[in-house]
């Protein structure tokens, strides 16, 4: 059966080989010590399974060929053997212990997040990632203290929705702002989330950790080669779950320091440019005043959040500029509109799914949309 499906598979693959990139059959190339351990654990167990599978089903197919009525085989009547039962209980048990031993070592290594060189807090939002380089212990002597990035999908909408538009090489796995880390340093990732559960996953690092609202979890990795590593959110988090990639750029330490200096020099501007979302993220006390001080800009909120639905009229959302759809809503009066946007209505979650926005910001965004749709 397996053979048949492989044949079918091979021919089908040949058929559509024009489509793109070579397909992989196994795990991604591991780029951290943990990922390498996972890779070899998987290979070990897979091959043990293959050997047992071939042995057991070799027996079965031998019986199917030889012990059939059509070749005149008479049925034996044996049906019990305590010895045999004990043997095939104990042998698998021993094999399992052989698998459990290396697995236990890897579990303990994966859990050891102590003494990091650099700590980054990754916050999941619907639907983007925020990265904050944390101060204090394990902050690489403070070079990147306080850097905060917001990282969202960079693939343009028309590549997703319009089959005629050529898809880019890293379609759906490209972001506007990458996480940057130094190589050969132990990076500890703290995960949390703002709304629902997300998961931070970079396959080549062997790292996957749920990001849970209200809780902090952690994991770690140490990359050895400079390069760009791509992952995705791995926990269903709502409609754009498939569209919140993770991109990590690993660089030499010098380059990292230079990047951090530049980033910090740009910070006042960066703080203003970064949507309020990130500010309110977790360290609300430290950064909230900055957000409060900035002017309330409805267009910015609209572009960063509301446009996801209202830009194209998704999920019954009135499309901006669609006068017919908006006229009945505008008729309800600005107070009602703002109330609906703040509390959520039908498919629209409260504050468009970002509770970190202030009421004033949501109201400003609504006014902006109304202005475009009269």
């Amino acid at each position, binding site marked *: 059966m397996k053979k048949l*499906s*492989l044949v*079918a598979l091979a021919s*089908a*693959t040949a058929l*559509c080989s024009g*489509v*793109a990139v070579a397909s*992989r059959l*196994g795990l*991604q190339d591991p780029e951290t010590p*943990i990922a390498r351990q996972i890779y070899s*654990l*998987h290979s070990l*167990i897979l091959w043990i*399974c293959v050997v047992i*599978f071939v042995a*057991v089903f070799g027996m079965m197919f031998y*019986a199917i060929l030889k*012990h*059939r*009525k059509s070749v005149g*085989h*008479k*049925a*034996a009547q*044996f*049906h019990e053997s305590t010895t045999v039962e004990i043997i*095939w*209980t104990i042998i698998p048990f021993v094999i*399992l212990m052989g698998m*459990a031993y290396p697995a236990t070592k890897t*579990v*303990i290594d994966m859990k050891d997040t102590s003494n990091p060189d650099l700590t980054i807090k990754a916050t999941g939002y619907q639907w983007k990632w925020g990265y904050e380089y944390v101060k204090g212990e394990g902050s690489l002597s403070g070079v990147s203290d306080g850097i905060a990035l917001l990282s969202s999908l960079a693939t343009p909408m028309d590549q997703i*929705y319009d*089959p005629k538009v050529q898809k880019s*090489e890293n*379609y759906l*796995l490209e972001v506007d702002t990458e996480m940057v880390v130094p190589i050969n340093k132990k990076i500890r990732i703290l995960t949390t989330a703002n709304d*629902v*559960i997300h998961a931070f996953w970079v*396959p080549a690092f*062997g790292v996957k*950790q*749920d990001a*849970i609202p*209200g809780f902090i*979890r952690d*994991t770690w990795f140490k990359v050895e080669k400079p390069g760009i590593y791509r992952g*995705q959110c*791995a*926990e*269903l*988090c709502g*409609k754009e*779950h*498939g*569209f919140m990639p993770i991109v990590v750029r690993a660089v030499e330490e010098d380059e990292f320091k230079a990047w951090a200096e530049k980033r910090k020099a740009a910070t006042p501007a960066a703080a203003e440019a970064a949507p309020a979302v990130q500010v309110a993220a977790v360290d609300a006390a430290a950064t909230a005043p900055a957000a409060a001080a900035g002017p309330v800009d409805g267009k910015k909120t609209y572009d960063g959040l509301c446009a996801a639905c209202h830009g194209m009229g998704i*999920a019954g959302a009135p499309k901006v500029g669609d006068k017919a759809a908006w006229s009945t809503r505008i008729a309800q009066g600005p107070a009602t509109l703002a109330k609906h946007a703040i509390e959520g209505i039908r498919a629209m979650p409260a504050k468009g*799914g970002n509770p970190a926005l202030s009421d004033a910001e949501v109201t400003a965004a609504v006014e902006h949309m109304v202005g475009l749709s009269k």
Partner: protein
Amino acid sequence: MEAVHGHDHAHDHDHHHPTGVTRWLTTTNHKDIGTMYLWFSFAMFISGGLLALGIRAELFQPGLQLWRPEFFNQLTTMHGLMMVFGAIMPAFVGFANWQIPLMIGASDMAFARMNNFSFWLLPPAALLLMASFLVPGGATGAGWTLYAPLSVQQGMGMDLAIFAIHIMGASSIMGSINIITTILNMRAPGMTLMKMPLFVWTWLITAYLLIAVMPVLAGAVTMLLTDRHFGTNFFNAAGGGDPVLYQHVFWFFGHPEVYIMILPAFGIVSQIIPAFARKPLFGYSSMVYATASIAILSFIVWAHHMFVTGMPAAGQLFFMYATMLIAVPTGVKVFNWVATMWKGSMTFETPMLFSVGFLFVFTMGGFTGLILAVTPVDIQLQDTYYVVAHFHYVLVAGSLFALFAGTYFWLPKWTGNMYSETLGKLHFWCSMIFFNITFFVMHFLGLAGMPRRIPDYSQQFADFNMIASIGAFGFGLSQLIFLAAVVKCIRGGEKAPANPWEGADTLEWTHLPSPAPYHSFETPPVVK
């Protein structure tokens, strides 16, 4: 009926057959109710299958062609809910209704009216699920696991799903009480527990699992409901709750649920393989003990679904060891089946083909389960297509293939006619081939890093997704052959003898004509 209430027996005989719709609405006959369960589950199987084809059609190529992402999430969620609660579980209850009284020599199920009620709860639940596509915001798109807080965010469709789960849970609990009572009290004289056919044993154990865990699920979704509407904060961290609590409660139900869907399948296969090998089941008592061990272990492995939530190393290690341990009794079962076939005198009619197919392909799912049990590997593969491949290998090639095997095996007893062997074999080979085309490639997708539950993917995954989609449509169409085979068999065909299978030796074959009379075993047979 005599054994249960002898005094109104004569009365029963004269008036037992209201006709038309009333017959089905009011019936208390285990055969009628079993038939209704089976048709209901087939209807849900087709509905859930159509949703699956909607998923595969969107994933045929990169880019969004057919659905908006939120509707795609509704498709995956409702496919899961319908298949688990609407198709697989009721189908096994249908088998229990038909077969348990026949196999233990009982006249009917113990609580005949409750039996009727537990079936008739299901259609309203199914209507709630289907209607949820039509309410504002559509059906729930939180995944069949309905994880909070995402499920707290959902629209009204989520509430309909919660009520549907409540109703189906009540139905399952009543069905289980009925099955346990029937098995423990209504066996024919001489049939000790250790003489029961294995199908009856597996259902006895399954029914206990159902009673243990369905209330847990009901609790989980009720907490969701109150979080959504009544201001509680069970799963809301801002209010002192914990989103991960939901997952613990859900999987305390969810993992035994996995065995609820597979143990009766083990039972069916354990009846069929000896019948077609013309040789008694090897290791009957060790099969019983293995089934019980799996059931007990199923309560202490739930958190292997949650390795990436971040639990202490000790927790990960405990759940890894416990999960790996399940491979031992499962292995015992596979070895016993192969030993049953060894030195038999086998023939390969459709039920045997599906059973051998089950054994072969289900075991692949068992092995990927073992690979996933290993925490570090699971962390890499959790929420990828590898997991999708794994559970479809155990649920489709496992549960579903066993259901097909059982249907072909017992159709002659149910209808009095032989099914068409040509159609049956065609159905088997089409299902087997298309199943593997669909799901084998998903292992590669998962290993290479494609997350599950995404409506669109990067281009490196394009080839295998296209293959899987082609296979899925082939598999879907193959099920029409099954429908044709069953309808043809019901409408006529070669008359079935009382025992068309040389090696079958349970009471329904040895003591009853085909078709089994409307009231069977009014006088219980004596089992030596």
